[in-house]
């Protein structure tokens, strides 16, 4: 127990020092016992970060552009639609978020997955790739209005 705690603390220190991201994916054998068994982690069960995550690419337009390409290349658009405007998965461009729209929350959604079918892409994309996607999504223009009114005569 104390060994696990010590490891957790050292992991936090490392994370803070590098300013990169959260704990490694749950398959890592060095994880604390509570999350060592992958079967105990369903999509969306986000382990605590221990630190506030910050986007290393904060609003960098070149990274956002790369993220747009990645959004298509990784088939994100297959569920979330072209321009992230929504399809079988929710819109990511309407400034409404099921699981929070802060950088760290969007990061967690992509990295760890979410319970209604969002796969965990952390293992595929890595920390850097996920931040690239976050940067793209956060670069999408805020719509002037979001359609929320009931049906109206045209």
């Amino acid at each position, binding site marked *: 127990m104390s060994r696990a705690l010590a490891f957790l603390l050292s992991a936090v220190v490392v994370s803070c020092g590098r300013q990169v991201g959260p704990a490694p994916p749950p398959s890592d054998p060095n994880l604390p016992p509570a999350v060592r068994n992958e079967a105990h982690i369903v999509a969306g069960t986000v382990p605590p970060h221990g630190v506030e995550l910050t986007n290393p690419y904060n609003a960098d337009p070149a990274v956002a552009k790369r993220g747009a390409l990645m959004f298509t*290349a990784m088939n994100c658009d297959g569920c979330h*639609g072209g321009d992230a405007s929504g399809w079988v998965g929710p819109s990511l461009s309407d400034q409404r978020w099921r699981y929070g729209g802060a950088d760290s929350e969007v990061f967690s959604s992509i990295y760890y997955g979410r319970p209604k*079918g969002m796969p965990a892409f952390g293992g595929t994309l890595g920390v850097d790739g996920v931040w690239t996607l976050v940067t793209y999504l956060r670069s999408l223009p805020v719509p002037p209005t979001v359609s929320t009114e009931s049906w109206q005569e045209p």
Partner: protein
Amino acid sequence: MLICRISILACIGAGALLCGSVAAAGRPGPAGGDGEWSMPAKDFAATRFSALADITPPKAPTLHPVWTFSTGVLGGHEGQPLVVGGVMYVVTPWPNVLYAFDLSKDGYPLKWKYRPDVSPNAIGVSCCDTVNRGAFYADGKLFYNLLDGHTVAVDAATGREVWNTRIAEVGNGETVSMAPMVVKDRVIVGASGGEFGIYGWIKGLDAKTGKVLWTARNIGPDADMLIRQDTFKPTYDNGTDLGAHSWDGETWKTGGAPVWGWVSYDPELDLIYYGTGNPSPYNPEQRAGDNKWTASVLARRPGDGALVWAYQFTPHDNWDYDATGAMILADLKVGGKDAKVLVHFDKNGFAYTLDRATGRLISAEAFAHVTWAKSVDLSTGRPVLDPDKQTGVSRGNVRGVCPSLEGGVSPASPAAFSPRTHLFYTSTNNLCMDYAAARSTHLKGTPFIGANSPYSAGPGGNLGAFIAWDAVTGKKVWENKEEFPSWSGALVTAGDVVFYGTLDGWFKSADAKTGKVLSKFKVGSGVVGNPITYRGPDGRQYVAVYAGIGGDWALLSGDVRSDDPADVRPPADFMKNIARHTSQGGMIWIFGL
């Protein structure tokens, strides 16, 4: 469209809870024979015809609801209930709850309820909502599929699980929405995933134990497809390994060919028939060749799965024309002679009649507005293509392709056949599309699509219709136009009454001979399920149907949703006002005289 969307296709539903009353204590139930509905399409031939005749055109106007139940689930309620031995069985969309209602007691109380453990991860791997197309009753058990790739057998008396077999891999893009077929101690099941680049298959399970006895791929080398040269006799093709050689390189390995529709069975020929879905990805330039046997009908022996014949409706499908719609087995007079045929309304807009012993094409006529092909050549079995409607990245945005990839009819909306009128009855869609293909990369378990395809109304402006079709002459006999795409299955009875629902939430009965609407009732949510009829324990004829818009419409009419404040969308531009008429729901309705 203001915003390009990637279009998809596929998938299910059912449901149940309670209010209302009726169902008097009754005479001893005549459960059995034509008073029941024990399998998805009523019979092995998939006719959706019932010999019950209490409800007739003169009496149908008095049809009224006698019972309702909320399933507590909002997914698209495709599929249909079953009624066996005075009990109604209902499967819901994910999480695939199975309800049993005692029809012999006042208020139809719950007899039992079975709640399987179904992984929510499957939700993100189902292309087009979390539908389920229903259960199959045989030998005192209910067999049905769970979205996350399991088949279960449940004891009909107690609701206890008898076996539970994993048949599909969600991680590979496979989910299961289809209704099983049970013949000769085999439970026949297949997987969805034409939008995820699966290696499509069908399996035969032991009905007693759930053990997988055979697995047959729908594409790929002969060995994988359970093709033996001494038993496989397709009419229009020869050669070995057609399911691999008709693909560019090894593209068949991610070539789709899902099984998400219906299975029918001819006991005399001992053949099961089922359709395969689209090839993956939607961009056809990533998979040169015919892409056999996608968008095809396959005839197999249920005992060992051996393929006996196959016919491809849409070679090298460019438009997501799945052929997973019902294969209806009928005996018709063709050219004055009795013929054992298979009739299929395809997404591609043609209604096909084939010799069901050999797979030889007898006729193919358009039942919807078709622009991708001019006709089907009966000597070669191949469509005569319009070269301007071929798609692919190099062709840019191809305009005016009809039908749209929703299909001239959706495979989710099975037709019915009446041996009394000799007519087929089906919902139809009147939609066209522009089709802009894009290169797509296969990443296991993620969408493998590569096309934007916004829709528009076809000629006439009505988006749907319900029609009667003469498969011998290849002509429409009557048509009831509908404002919205028609997505419900059909039911026809010996009372010469047909039943269907509409996307804006009407449940209708009509005269089978003329199409005259006899009754209609607003059921609260759009109908994408299939009506059934049965004789209750009180001796009376009832009609049951699900209400609960969904399936593809969960994607295409986002403004009918109310359940997610984080996902608000404008109306679809080809169907701006559907939300004025309906919203999500999940109800079972029963109607009586």
